[in-house]
């Protein structure tokens, strides 16, 4: 270890660290987050470059790209948080000392530098701020303390805004639809009952509440704080009803779209994916509306993900620009076959092209994941808090 400390002086007059800082920035900005994290450990000079405000101003979440956070547990009180960085197809390990490992955490959601966990043993919500490296316990939500299993992924959303965050979840109380919102700015919960919508609406956060027959119930919140949450009841078309022998997993993106993952049985407890589609709500002028298919993963991409699986869960995130014309999205499917986990990453770019991103094993020692304790997609994680 001391060998490199005693290394002979550079044979040349220039060196990487002696280049003008603008040039070093030019180089660093071309590297992905996993490389920058390693670079931080090379030397004090490089580490201070990465910490400089000049570099931080130039390096935006967009330069980093979307990440998938995966929480795994080895032992009951030993948790690992990793981030898969799609642009470089590599994993990054987050400091485990920051995790509320003793609370038996389950990862619920991620946004920016904020991660939200549900503690199974304490029935609490814990928020980790990677930037300030602190954990706060949220006050009990209005419906009282809840177990990890009570949280539905399709009914919750974390929205971050630099140092603060809002956590929203929608729930039917009796048969009345409610939106519950926690704001870290005020440190309090707010609840509001949703009303039926008469006008077509776009934007905001969409939560899937429930499905009755061929009708789905959606609660739409925001976009602004003053907007009252509204209820939409788009119909499910016949094409959405699974055919015989088929199962259709629905993954809700929170932005008014859902991914439908169709699969057929290969044998006892083993299935294979036969189709992945994206559906959106077409709103009728008179209110209501219908789910309609907006995109489908083409056969050649589907070919890549046709692996047998036992159970599957997923998450989806979309970025829509220009009134819905440009739709970039990513779908992550986590499947398990006989105890071994597999992760599938599908992305659709602005031009409508679908890509499959290979997700390697998390490290050289283990091929797969064990004891998965939650996944969360985040498109706005810059990773600067790790540098």
């Amino acid at each position, binding site marked *: 270890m001391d060998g*490199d400390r005693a*290394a002979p002086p550079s044979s040349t007059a220039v060196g*990487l660290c002696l280049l003008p800082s603008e*040039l070093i920035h030019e*180089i660093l900005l071309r590297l992905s987050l996993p490389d920058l994290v*390693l670079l931080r450990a090379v*030397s*004090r000079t*490089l580490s201070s470059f990465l910490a400089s405000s000049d570099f931080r101003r130039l390096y935006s979440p967009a330069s980093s790209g979307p990440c998938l956070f995966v929480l795994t547990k080895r032992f009951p009180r030993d948790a690992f948080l990793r981030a898969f960085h799609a642009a470089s197809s590599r994993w990054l390990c987050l400091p485990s*000392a920051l995790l509320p490992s003793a609370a038996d955490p389950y990862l619920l959601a991620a946004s920016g530098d904020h991660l939200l966990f549900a503690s199974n043993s304490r029935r609490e919500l814990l928020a980790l701020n990677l930037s300030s490296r602190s954990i706060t316990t949220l006050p009990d939500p209005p419906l009282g303390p809840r177990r990890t299993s009570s949280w539905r992924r399709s009914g919750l959303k974390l929205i971050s805004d630099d140092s603060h965050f809002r956590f929203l979840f929608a729930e039917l109380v009796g048969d009345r639809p409610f939106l519950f919102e926690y704001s870290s700015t005020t440190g309090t919960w707010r609840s509001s009952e949703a009303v039926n919508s008469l006008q077509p609406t776009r934007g905001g956060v969409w939560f899937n509440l429930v499905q009755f027959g061929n009708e789905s119930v959606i609660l739409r919140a925001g976009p602004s704080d003053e907007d009252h949450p509204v209820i939409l009841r788009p119909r499910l078309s016949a094409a959405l009803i699974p055919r015989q022998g088929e199962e259709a997993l629905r993954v809700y993106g929170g932005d008014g779209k859902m991914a439908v993952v169709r699969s057929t049985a290969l044998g006892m407890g083993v299935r294979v994916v036969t189709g992945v589609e994206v559906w959106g709500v077409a709103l009728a002028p008179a209110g209501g509306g219908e789910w309609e298919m907006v995109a489908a993963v083409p056969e050649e991409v589907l070919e890549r993900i046709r692996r047998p699986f036992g159970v599957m869960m997923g998450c989806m995130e979309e970025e829509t620009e220009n009134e819905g014309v440009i739709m970039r999205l990513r779908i992550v499917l986590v499947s398990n076959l006989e105890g071994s986990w597999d992760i599938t990453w599908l992305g659709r770019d602005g031009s409508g092209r679908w890509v499959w991103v290979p997700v390697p094993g998390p490290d050289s020692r283990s091929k797969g994941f064990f004891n998965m304790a939650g996944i969360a997609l985040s498109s706005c994680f810059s990773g600067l808090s790790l540098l």
Partner: protein
Amino acid sequence: MVGVKKKMVTLVSSDGVEFVVEKRVAEQSLFIKNALNEGGVEEKVMIPIPKVTSDTLSSVLEYCEKHASATEFQENEIEEWDKEYIEKADLDLLYYLLQASYSMSIMGLMELGAKKVASLIRGKSPQEIRELFNIKNDFTPEQEEEIRREMQWNYE
């Protein structure tokens, strides 16, 4: 006047070597372009290029020459040429090219060099990066231990 005479300029490297090149080649450098505009001089211009040695300047001018006539080439052809050009530069020349592109304001060359250095860093461990770029590990043992503890899994 016989025919169309190409406008030439003379660049002088830091070690005193003169390079006579076409104006349009030299103007790939914004630094030179501005110097020529400000000077308003027509013929026989001598422009000193401080801090750039003749070896480096000759390589820089090879780049400028190619790019000054880039319109004659297909885009993928020039990309291919760029790739070969930067590939054959060793690490020392790469540093010098980067510094020269910076001081002479040649954006394309600067991006090309930065991209090359980034590709050399990509996927390497901290120790491999130190060895390749001859960077001294100047962390105190305590600081190194702290980084190691915090991000242990990434550094193995």
